[in-house]
């Protein structure tokens, strides 16, 4: 089996503070991987290391077998293949909805404007944002902005899509719209890595689940294994807290 993404002995420190310790992870093509754990466990940092928004302190990350941390590696081209959806949406405020989904395609992938717009409109239609193509981000609700964020990332035709707590900043009634869009994407066979606090959703769509605690992977397995038969005491403790709350 060839892995699309392979993380080996990854470490990340901010000054004295070690956030990630000896992380090992494999992602196969078409797989949906969920990373769960309490706040401060290093989930988001791990995700940000994968597309190099954070520079790892040591270890290797291989994409199609190439080490992305090598000095001559073409980071921009790699990032174009690894989409990212942010917790705080991070839409470009100077551009309208359609332009947000077009600018990456024309600038990075050098697609012509007509083709880029066609792709963008297809993706915006899938997340139900067609009526708002002329709107500026400031004129949208949080749920709408996040759906545009997803369309923007998918318009680049990425090989992997990373989600960094995509629903954490949303009002509860908007969460479902965004989760529906993500679910639809998962069904297309797109490889996804997902950092989330939506346990029911993670259980529903994940092929593989990683539980992180204090910067290490405490337990991993299939969704069934982690959610129904957690082995580690801290996994059980975490799930108990979360499931009670929900």
């Amino acid at each position, binding site marked *: 089996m060839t892995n699309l993404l392979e993380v080996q002995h990854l470490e990340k420190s901010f000054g004295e503070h070690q956030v990630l310790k000896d992380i090992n992870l494999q992602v196969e093509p078409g797989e949906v991987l969920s990373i769960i754990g309490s706040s401060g466990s290093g989930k988001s940092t791990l995700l940000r290391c994968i597309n190099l*928004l954070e520079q790892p302190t040591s270890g290797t990350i291989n994409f199609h077998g190439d080490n992305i941390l090598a000095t001559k590696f073409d980071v921009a081209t790699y*990032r174009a293949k690894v989409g990212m959806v*942010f917790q705080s949406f991070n839409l470009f*405020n100077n551009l309208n909805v359609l332009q947000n989904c077009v*600018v990456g395609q024309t600038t990075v992938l050098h697609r012509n404007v007509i083709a880029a717009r066609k792709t963008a409109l297809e993706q915006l*239609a899938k997340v139900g944002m067609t*009526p708002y*193509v*002329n709107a500026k981000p400031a004129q949208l609700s949080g749920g709408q902005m996040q759906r545009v964020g997803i369309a923007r990332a998918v318009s*680049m035709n990425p090989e992997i899509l990373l989600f960094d707590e995509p629903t954490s900043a949303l009002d509860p009634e908007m969460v479902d719209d965004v989760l529906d869009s993500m679910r639809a994407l998962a069904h297309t066979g797109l490889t996804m890595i997902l950092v989330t606090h939506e346990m029911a959703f993670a259980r529903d769509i994940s092929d593989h689940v990683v539980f992180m605690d204090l910067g290490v992977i405490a337990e991993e397995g299939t969704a069934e294994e982690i959610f129904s038969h957690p082995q580690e005491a801290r996994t059980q403790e975490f799930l108990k807290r979360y499931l009670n709350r929900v």
Partner: protein
Amino acid sequence: MHQRRNLLIFLGMLFFTLLTVPTVTSHAADETFKVGMEAGYPPFNWTQNDASNGAVKIQGTSTYAGGYDVQMAKKVAKSLGKKLVIVKTEWDGLSPALTSGKIDAIIAGMSPTPQRRKAIDFTDTYYKSQLVVIVRKDGKFTNAKSLKDFKNAKLTGQLNTFHYTALDQIKGAIKEPAMKDFPSMRVALESGTIDGYVSEKPEGISVTNADPNVKMIELKGNNGFKTNPEDTDLAIGVRKGDADKLKIDHALAKISQSQRDDLMDQAVAQQPQSGNKQENWFIAIFQQYGGMLLRGTGVTLLISMVGTIVGFMIGLLIGILRTIPKTGSVLRRTCLKVVDWLLSVYIEVFRGTPMIVQAAVLYYGAAQAFGWNMDRLVAALLIVSINTGAYLAEIMRGGIMSVDDGQFEAAHALGMTHLQTMFKIILPQAIRNSLPAVTNEFVINIKDTSVLSIISVSELFFSGSTIAGQNFQFFHTYLVICLIYLVLTFTITRILRFVERKMDGPQNYNLMANQDQVTTPTAS
């Protein structure tokens, strides 16, 4: 001070060479005799609009200089066998203009004081004068007969002249701060902020002829000022060691005292009068000086607009350079740090010194240190651009930093490079956010170009001072100037507000029922 001046000159030169193709001409020995004067000190020298009464065109303008000094200059130039060129220069700029070679002689009613002799040489006397006090006819001191009668009078004199130091001889007088030129003192007298000013007899005769409300007090013998012949004698200033000095002395010797008196009488008779048939002063000013006001407005607008646009580009460039992330190889980081440091120096120096000083240092400094004789307008454009750049650099940096990090990250996550991120995403927002500050800077520039009168750029304020020096209607003239400034700044503010709204796009968006309706222009 000296070090800072050198640094300023150096930086000025650096940016000069970086930014523009220098339009400089070396001052090779040519057959012109360039004479500097204020052209605002009748009857010695004044500005007029035509060539009547033997007036000579003022270099770089469409106005003419007339007066006793001009007639003297013509005689001297003739005996030197050279073509006379009149360069209108502020009083304080005369000495540096001479030493830096922008002019060949000062004929401006200047006395050969020992202090001035340290910097420049003087020829023999070309006029001998006497100190007088100018007061209001209806004022308290109108009947003064001796210096003692000026007890408790608020008096002043022109800056850097012996007129002002002579005030110390009046016991009990209140010595007001010195003023920069005669028009200012006449305004002060008219408004009552001073009771009188010390002047010399010819200027006194002129002002009493032109303005019926003032009176010249002549003080005879022991009742008057004790003056040094070096002060009351007027001589021609030349560069130290100038070979022409002897020739000029020779030429002056040939002009007899009676000829000199005749010339002075003519000058007093010919000087500009305030008499105007038009009843409405507002219309009169526009009728008589409309062209000069229009040109002044044009120059002010040109300098402030070019200065703001070029300054904006400098600011933008520096803002981009200073926000490049300092990552990567050691060499790259070091280079970025050095560039950052140099830019900080530029910003600190040009933000931390007055524009009037920068203009004087660049314009006269360039000539004195490097022999560069740059055009006044070029120097003005340069100074305003560099100065504005220093202010806007920080504003642009702030504008860039005001865009949240999330948008940088999102752009990087899409695979954009730092430059692509800047141009597609960050700068459009940074520019939009800093537009109110740029508008502000534009308005400041329109007003602050008035300080460029130090290098004799004929912008609006300079034109206004010239007009006031001719028509003696100080309040009215400055009121007109004031109005023009207000119209300029108000219009500019409205235009830029409109641009802001354009950049913001429509307040509302149209809901699109299906994809076929989408006609939005796309980015890039």
